[in-house]
C-alpha cells in the first residue's frame, strides 16, 4: 500500500460513501424462530428442516467470505458488529444497502416459501435495520410465486428501511416474463428498486448447455446470466410498461456492458418488428432504468483500457460503489476504489451520488 493510495482513500472516504452491496446471511433457521408462526416452528422442529441454505453459493469459497469476516459460531456476513467494524466504519459509510441471498426460491412448498421470506424480512428489520440507522435493506421474496411475492412486498414495502426487492439472477424464467408482472408492479407501487443479485437456485442449469463442473465456471459465468436477464427486461418491454421501474444489477460485473449494448442496439435495428413495443435503443433503457454495482470490477490489466470501458458505458450515472462485504473481491480497500484516472466529479458520482439519486436516499 503506497502513501498516495492511502491518501486517496482517505480523501474519497471523507467526502462520503454509499455502499450499494453489503451481504447478510441468516445464521440458522433457529434465528428465524421469533419471526415464524407457531405452525412453521413446529414443522421445522419436527422435520429438522434447516432452511434452503444460507445462500446459493458455497459459503466458505474464497470469493464468498473474507478470512476476517467470520464471527465465532456463525457464517461470514451474519454479525452486525463485524459488519459495522469491517465495512461501515472504515469506509465512513453514510448508508449501506443490505442484500440477503437466502434462497427462498429453492423452497418448493409455496406456503413455506412465504413464511420463510416473511421471517427473513422481519429478522432484517429487527436485527439490522432497527439496530443500525446507516443500513437499508432489500426485501426477500418467493420469486417463484410472483403473486405471493407481490403480497410480501406490499406487507413490508412501506417500512422506510426497505429500498429494494431482491431477486436472484438465476431463475426459472427471466424477470421480464409476463408471469412476473405482479411482482414488478408491486415493486413500482411501493417505490422500490428491483435488485438482481448473484446466484439463485432454480431447477434449470446456469448455462444453455447444462451444468458446469466447477464453481469457478459458475462464478465467471454468472455475468452471462445477468446479460440474459437484462436483455429480457429490455425486449419484453417492461420499461415501457413500468416507466418508473428501476433495476440494479448487484455483483454482476459491468465491463461486459458496453459490448453487449452495441450488439443489442444493432440487433434491435434488424429485429425490432418482432418486439414493436421496444421503442428506443436498448442502451437508452439501460441508461435510464438500470444501475450496476462496482464489485467485482472485472477490470482489464491495463488502466487505459479500464478508462475506455468507463467511457464506453456512455453515461456517468450507471455505477454504484460497493464493497460486496463480506465477499472477497479485493485485498486492500484501495483496490475497491474507482481508478485514479477518472475525473473527481465522476468518482463522486460512483462513490455516492448515483446511489443517492437512484435509491432516493
Amino acid at each position, binding site marked *: 500500500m503506497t502513501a498516495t493510495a492511502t491518501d486517496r482513500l482517505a480523501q474519497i472516504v471523507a467526502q462520503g460513501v454509499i455502499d450499494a452491496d453489503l451481504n447478510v446471511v441468516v445464521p440458522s433457521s433457529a434465528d428465524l424462530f421469533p419471526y415464524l408462526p407457531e405452525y412453521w416452528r413446529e414443522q421445522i422442529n419436527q422435520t429438522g428442516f434447516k432452511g434452503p441454505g444460507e445462500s446459493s453459493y458455497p459459503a466458505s469459497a474464497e470469493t464468498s467470505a473474507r478470512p476476517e469476516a467470520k464471527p465465532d459460531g456463525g457464517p461470514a456476513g451474519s454479525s452486525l458488529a463485524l459488519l459495522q467494524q469491517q465495512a461501515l466504519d472504515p469506509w465512513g459509510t453514510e448508508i449501506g444497502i443490505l442484500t440477503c441471498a437466502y434462497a427462498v426460491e429453492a423452497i418448493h412448498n409455496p406456503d413455506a416459501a412465504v413464511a420463510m421470506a416473511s421471517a427473513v424480512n422481519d429478522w432484517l428489520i429487527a436485527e439490522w435495520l432497527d439496530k443500525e440507522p446507516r443500513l437499508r435493506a432489500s426485501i426477500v421474496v418467493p420469486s417463484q410465486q410472483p403473486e405471493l411475492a407481490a403480497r410480501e412486498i406490499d406487507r413490508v414495502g412501506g417500512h422506510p428501511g426497505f429500498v429494494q426487492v431482491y431477486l436472484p*439472477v438465476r431463475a426459472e424464467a427471466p424477470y421480464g416474463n409476463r408471469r412476473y408482472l405482479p411482482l414488478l408492479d408491486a415493486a413500482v407501487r411501493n417505490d422500490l428498486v428491483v435488485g438482481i443479485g448473484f446466484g439463485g437456485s*432454480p431447477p434449470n442449469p446456469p448455462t444453455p*448447455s447444462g451444468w458446469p463442473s466447477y464453481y469457478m465456471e459458475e462464478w465467471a459465468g454468472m455475468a452471462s446470466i445477468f446479460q440474459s436477464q437484462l436483455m429480457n427486461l429490455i425486449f*419484453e418491454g417492461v420499461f415501457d410498461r413500468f416507466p418508473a421501474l428501476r433495476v440494479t444489477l448487484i455483483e454482476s460485473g459491468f465491463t461486459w456492458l458496453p459490448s453487449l449494448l452495441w450488439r443489442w442496439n444493432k440487433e*434491435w435495428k434488424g429485429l425490432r418488428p418482432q418486439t414493436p413495443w421496444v421503442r428506443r435503443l436498448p442502451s437508452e433503457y439501460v441508461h435510464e432504468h438500470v444501475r450496476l454495482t462496482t464489485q467485482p470490477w472485472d477490470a482489464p490489466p491495463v488502466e487505459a483500457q479500464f478508462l475506455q470501458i468507463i467511457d464506453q458505458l456512455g453515461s456517468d450515472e450507471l455505477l454504484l460503489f460497493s464493497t460486496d462485504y463480506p465477499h472477497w473481491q479485493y485485498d486492500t480497500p484501495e483496490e475497491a476504489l474507482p481508478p485514479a484516472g477518472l475525473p473527481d466529479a465522476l468518482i463522486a458520482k460512483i462513490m455516492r451520488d448515483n446511489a443517492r439519486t437512484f435509491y432516493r436516499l
Partner: protein
Amino acid sequence: MATTLTREQTRTRVKPAVIDGDIHNDLPSPQALLPFLPAEWRDYHARFGTFGYSATAYPRINPNAARHDAWPPGGGNPGSSLTFMREQLLDAWNIEYGILNCLIGAGARRLDQSAAVAQAINEWQVATWLDPEPRLRASLVVPYEDGQLAAAEIDRAARDRRFVQVLLIARTAEPLGRRKYWPLYEAAVRNDLPIGIHFGGSGGFPFTGAGRPSYYIEDHAGMAQAFQSQVVSLVCEGVFEQFPTLKIVMIEGGFAWLPPLMWRLDAAYGRLRAETPHLKRLPSEYIREHFWITTQPMEEPTKPAQFHQLLDQLGMSDRLIFATDYPHWDFDAPDQAFPVRLDPDLERRIMADNAKGLYKF
C-alpha cells in the same frame, strides 16, 4: 427490399480476394440426403426422420433465417444451389476460399442415427460441393453428443483434406469442456483439424441461465452468452492442458464480449485457483493461444473509434477471420462489414491471411 448486387457491381470493391469463414450449404430437399445414407438407415430415416431436443420454436425474422434474395431461382432452400452460390457469393465477392458449415444437425438424440446422418452429410458435401467447386472447403459434420462416434467419423472422413475443421455447435447437452467430448478433441488433434463452434444448437435446456426467454432477438443475440459458457467450460476443465495443440474457432458468436470475459475469468482464477489445480496459466493465456474467431456478426460500437479500442483490448488481431454468413439475413458484406477503416495490413490479415494460416490454404 433487398436487391442483389451483380458481380460487376461488387467485384471491383473487394480486391484482393477474400476468404469467407462461414458459408451455409443446405440440402435442396430432405430426400436428397437419402442416397448418401448407409443402406440400413435409409428406410428408418425416411419414416421417422430425426428428433433432437425441443427448444427452437422462435420464429426467425425471415424464412430459413435467409436473405430475401437468397432463394435460388430454380427452387430449393437458400444455400442449396451451387450455381446460385457461385453467382451470388463466390464470384460476386471475389471469394478465394469459402468454408462450408452445414447446419443440418447431427445432434439427434438417437446417437447411432446421428452418426449415420453425419456420414451422409459429409459424403453429400464431397459429391455436391467440394468435387465441383475448388474454391470450397467444408467442416466435418459429426455426431458431437457422442465423443467416440464423432471421433470415428473424424478418422474416417478427415483423409479428404478438403475438410478443414470439425463442426460443433454453441448449445450442447453438456458444456463442451466436459470429458464426454474429449475423444472428439483427441481425434481432431490427431487429424490436425481445428474445432469450429458455430452459432445455434440445443442441448435440451432453456437458452439462458435464467430460463427461457420469449423472443427471437433473445435467442439470436443470446448466442453470445452460449459462447461465453463454452469458453468458460473449455478453459476451466483443463481441455487445453490435456490437448496442448487444440485449436478452436468460434463462428458467428461475435467477439466484443471476449475481452471482458477474459478479465473476469482471470479474476475468478486469482481467487478460486485452489479448485482448479489442473490449470497452469491464466485463463486469458489459454484463450489467446487456442482460440480463433470469425467476425460476423460484427459488433458495431456507438462511436466507430471504439472498434479500435475493442481490437486493442482483445489482443487477438491475428485470430480474427472474416465471414459473411451467406445466405443468412445478417450477412456481412466484405466491403461494409467493419465499422471503421482498418489499417491495410490488418485488413489483409482479417480478410484472408489469418484464415490461410489456420486452415493451411
